[in-house]
């Protein structure tokens, strides 16, 4: 076990993207966890100075209502991480199950599921999310569920390909001969053995979920009860000429977060496909 974790550390160290991504993510999680300690003001309190320039009192300045932008950005990390991670988890679970069943079962089941996946790929997903959130209310849980339910297609395709290649392997055939049930093989052998690329893919889904939420919040469909970066940007849009800091810093926070997940995903892909490494 120790050897294993040491190996893993070595692998992480050798891939620059993964290293940088994990460090960035650690910082981010730290900010989200210790938000009350880091924030200089209460993000919901309206201070007396409106659209104040960044200064030692207000590190990122204040917005049009006098809220401290720095504290809002700090608290916003909680919202973004929560949405990104839970939504990606939902979509990965759905995608893995659907893709796994399709690839492993093959035949008619596969045909029908593949057709459904193809149809989902053609749907304008963001617009669908928009409609659902607009109509069924923009609570945090609604946003998370809708994003999760609409973005599983990529994972499903990946898992399907994995299952198809694993299905022909000898150890699966032996498991069958021993008399293991189909479901048992799927959950005990196919999914665990094919899961690694899925994990790499899910970190990418986290980023796209965060971007979707930012987009929703930007057009006023975010959860009004929490602070979110998209909402800060939407608010800052009205004060663009007088207060550039409102939009700029919250946007940079999004870029920072999304990039950390991208780097981790990309790094994992490098471990998975040595061929890619060699080319580099």
């Amino acid at each position, binding site marked *: 076990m120790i050897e294993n974790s040491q190996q893993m550390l070595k692998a992480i160290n050798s891939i620059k993207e993964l290293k940088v991504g994990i460090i960035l993510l650690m910082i981010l999680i730290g900010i989200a966890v210790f938000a009350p300690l880091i924030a200089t003001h209460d993000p919901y309190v309206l201070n007396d100075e409106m659209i104040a320039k960044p200064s030692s009192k207000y590190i990122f300045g204040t917005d049009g209502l006098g809220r401290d932008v720095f504290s809002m950005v700090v608290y916003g990390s909680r919202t973004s991480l929560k949405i990104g991670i839970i939504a990606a988890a939902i979509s990965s679970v759905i995608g893995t199950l659907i893709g796994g069943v399709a690839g492993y079962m093959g035949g008619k089941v596969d045909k029908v599921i593949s*057709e459904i996946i*193809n*149809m989902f*790929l*053609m*749907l*304008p*997903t*963001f*617009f*669908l999310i*928009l*409609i*659902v959130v*607009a*109509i*069924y*209310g923009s609570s945090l849980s609604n946003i998370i569920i809708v994003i999760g339910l609409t973005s599983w297609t990529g994972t499903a395709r990946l898992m399907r390909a994995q299952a198809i290649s694993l299905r022909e392997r000898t150890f699966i055939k032996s498991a069958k001969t021993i008399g293991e049930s189909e479901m048992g093989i799927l959950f005990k052998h196919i999914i665990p053995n094919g899961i690694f690329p899925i994990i790499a893919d899910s970190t990418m889904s986290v*980023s796209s979920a965060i*971007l979707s939420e*930012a*987009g929703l919040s*930007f*057009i006023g*469909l975010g959860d009004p009860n929490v602070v979110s970066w*998209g909402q800060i*940007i939407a608010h*800052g*849009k009205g004060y*663009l*000429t007088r207060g*550039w800091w409102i*939009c*700029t810093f919250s*946007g940079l926070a*999004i*870029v*920072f*977060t*999304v*990039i950390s997940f*991208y*780097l981790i995903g*990309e790094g994992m892909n490098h471990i998975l496909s040595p*061929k*890619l490494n*060699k*080319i*580099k």
Partner: protein
Amino acid sequence: MIKVQGGIGVKSYIGKRIATGILTIIFSFCITFFLIRYAPGNPMKVLAGTDNPNLELIEHLTIKYGLDKPIPVQFVNYVKNILKGDLGHSYMSNEPVTKLIKEKVFPTILLTLTSSILAVVVGTFLGVYAARKVGTIFDRVMCGISYFIDATPGFWLGLIFILIFASTFKILPTSGMYDLRIEKQGFAHVLDVIKHMILPVSTLTIIQIPLYFRISRSSVLQTMSEDFIMTLRATGMKESQIFNKYVLRNAIIPTITMFSLSLAFTISGVALIEIVFAWPGMGRLIMDAIMKRDYPLLTGIYLTISISICIVMIITDIVYAIVDPRIRLE
């Protein structure tokens, strides 16, 4: 084991793709129809106003728009009308949905196509160039930049552009499609529109470039590492000749599929950017329809978008099948 299935020609391939397309349209239409109709809240109450709602008016409107009938009946009626090319009337403006969409569709298409084509050309060019110079500073810098752009929300980039080019330097117009104060004719009008297009189009192009950059770069690298390239090298063929004749053609093909796949995403991205730049396109219409619970307009827009995405995807698939014969055999 290479298994070549005979008999599947381009024709049946296209037929299959069209069938999937039609299925998708029906499917996405059903989803939206039922999602919207089963939604909480009554649009007729919104129409009647909140200050002094008139019950008779609400009843009259409900009957007028057929909302008193059971939902399956509404569905059948709606489908019947669609087959006649009628998407119903907007609740808010009482104008035909098709007319409202028609007014707004051109500016959106203008933005989408201009930026997509620019992004394909620039992105592919940069990607191929980076792949040829793999490992150099240019390649590394471009890869780094592509990560950053990928992580940037388009609407935010648009706002930053407004901040830089319109507020600080005051060179470009920030909003709208043309100058509302001075009416221009002919060429001057076109010039005016182009000037207004610069910022939204550059925003959209920039956020799409990384996609094509990465695809073309990795597919060039992939092709370069194939065995047949090694063989060609062994025959003593010039490197530039190998590249132009064999690598490039194989490497460009994946960008074609990407083009159609990304279009679905671009359309939603365009909506956000239209809102940023107050571009008079579908984005604004979508927002209004959502905020005012204009069901027919909403379903109409969604249907239009789904259909156009399907058509574009089918066309690209066909082009793809013609360009790359391997696809047909799969």
